[in-house]
């Protein structure tokens, strides 16, 4: 797998972000059926799809690694509160460091290496020229707080959920590329509270079932699901904090530019029980793909047209697609003449 394009691409201003033919091929296309239906759609996070698949490794590192790390640094420079960890989450943060460093070093030995002698650890990240020695579980031995240290070296957002009273609480996270939600707003909330705005699913008891399932995830049995929305321009940071920068772009979609301007945004979400703290690590790995690139695959083009066409109105509103949903459907219709 090829990591790191030579030139760092941007997710803001001039939006130079693009997907190579290989990246298009490995895109985790999220629609298993022709019409859109709510489901918890969880499966064990086991490798599938073979070499180079987005599901091949526990953490997916791809050609956008350097660009995403640059974007994350830009967000944190302006808004340091996009990374936070409550005091009782310290051990969970170290759980995450252990889990991520061990798997990166095993899965990508050409890029990462970890040497452990008791609690004395050495971590090398060749992609970012990092070579640090520290004492495991001693937060003062790292150049920055443990969650931020690890999060600045991983693609995607990470939240650490504390489990108590049979519920999950959003008590730590590094969230710089969210699909319109805010860590500062949701921090400390319970599972039901932070899902408050989601339409339709509450009445179906989906959240109750999901919570029971999630609180029972054991160590060593991570699970995953896909989530999706649409984004105008290849913007990673669609947070409420920056709404003034991107909200108005929804009016800029026209029949002429829809293919290049609208991106299908897919989140590969993984939930993994942390052994030392019993917290759940919730990782949200975001993939962006323009409609133009999607329709290079005729099956995806057809499927996506049918899903968009049958999307219920409350979801169109919730996902923020109201202003340009019909333009997207019209554009995709040309690739699905039978429907």
């Amino acid at each position, binding site marked *: 797998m090829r990591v790191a394009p030579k030139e760092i691409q941007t997710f803001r201003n001039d939006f130079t972000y693009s997907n190579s033919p290989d990246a298009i091929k490995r895109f985790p296309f999220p629609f298993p059926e022709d019409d859109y239906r709510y489901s918890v759609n969880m499966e064990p996070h086991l490798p599938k799809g073979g070499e180079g698949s987005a599901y091949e490794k526990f953490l997916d590192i791809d050609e956008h690694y350097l660009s995403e790390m640059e974007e994350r640094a830009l967000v944190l420079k302006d808004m340091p509160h996009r990374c936070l960890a409550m005091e009782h989450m310290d051990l969970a943060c170290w759980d995450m460091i252990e889990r991520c460093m061990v798997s990166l070093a095993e899965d990508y030995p050409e890029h990462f290496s970890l040497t452990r002698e008791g609690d004395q650890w050495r971590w090398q990240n060749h992609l970012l020229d990092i070579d640090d020695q520290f004492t495991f579980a001693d937060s003062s031995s790292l150049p920055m707080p443990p969650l931020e240290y690890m999060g600045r070296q991983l693609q995607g957002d990470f939240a650490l959920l504390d489990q108590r009273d049979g519920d999950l609480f959003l008590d730590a996270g590094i969230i710089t590329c969210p699909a319109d939600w805010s860590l500062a707003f949701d921090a400390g909330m319970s599972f039901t509270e932070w899902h408050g705005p989601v339409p339709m699913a509450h009445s179906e008891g989906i959240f109750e079932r999901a919570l029971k399932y999630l609180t029972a995830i054991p*160590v060593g*049995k991570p699970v995953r699901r896909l989530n999706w929305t649409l984004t105008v321009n290849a913007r990673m940071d669609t947070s409420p904090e920056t709404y003034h920068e991107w909200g108005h772009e929804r009016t800029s979609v026209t029949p002429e530019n829809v293919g290049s301007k609208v991106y299908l945004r897919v989140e590969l979400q993984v939930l993994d029980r942390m052994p030392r703290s*019993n917290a759940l690590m919730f990782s949200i790995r975001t993939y962006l793909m323009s409609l133009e690139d999607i329709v290079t695959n005729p099956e995806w083009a057809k499927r996506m047209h049918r899903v968009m066409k049958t999307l219920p109105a409350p979801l169109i509103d919730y996902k923020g697609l109201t202003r340009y949903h019909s333009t997207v459907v019209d554009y995709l219709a040309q690739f699905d003449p039978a429907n």
Partner: protein
Amino acid sequence: MNIEQISVRVSAVEQVAPTIREFTLRPLSGELPPFSSGSHVVVEMPGAQKIHRNAYSLMSDPWDTSEYRIAVRLQEDSRGGSRFMHQSVAVGDRLNITPPANMFAPQWEAKKHILIAGGVGITPFLSYLPELMRRDADFELHYLYRGSQTGAYRKELAAELGARYFAYDSDAAERCELTELFQQRPLGTHFYICGPLSLIEGMTGLAAEFGIPASAIHYEEFAAPQPGKPFEIEIRHSGQVIRVGEEESMLEALEAAQINVPNLCRGGVCGQCVCSVESGEVDHRDNFLSAEEKASGRVVMPCVSRAKSERLIVDIQE
């Protein structure tokens, strides 16, 4: 990254109280996963008639990945598991265990922790103590036991915990005044109870009288599946019929028929094994399902629950 089972070798066996034996388990290769305070593992015991699977709390320091320790009380009405551990397991034997799971974790934002152990219920707290001390947390341990049967580790606990340790040997007529445990506790105190059902019910009932919110009371009772009348399970989509004997649980009968149901605690606590019920009357014995769910008759936890009717038709997707 995915862990199914861990093979361990028994490296030490010790009688730590008249009815309690401690087993030290070491990995056959490498290190064991670290775990969080209050975790348990399910131990698989290859008995002569059937495979027994019991959950036992880990009581070693959670940061020690070189070994796990568990303690097993010989149950008078043992269905075979605790007897197997006491009579057939010796140093050098190999056993399979599941990775640790936790249904009884400490609440780390608590201001104070009151631990109440009854007999062999001391075991999960032994994994709490190293972590409570590492975090310099405010805590007390109250240990209720019968000196002629249980009371393992009491000398070590007294020496290590000093003024934070309170012991009550009912054989010596030492009584724990439960009401005193709840009096004048600072707001933000959390209570943890592990022991026989009578202790848990007594404590939770009293806590309610004192107006202590349920969210500050935590308990764990691994209900061993209790025997009952034999009955039959019919698997809806295949029509397969499985007989559940007097002494075996529904989950064990399903496993014996090669039908694997996800499970974690095997004691009516975690909810992993829950199955849909199409028809038949369930005898609910778990601590997980809500009163509404139990009343609906649409779900059953086969690890401990049984049938009141002669046949339950269940929907298990394999």
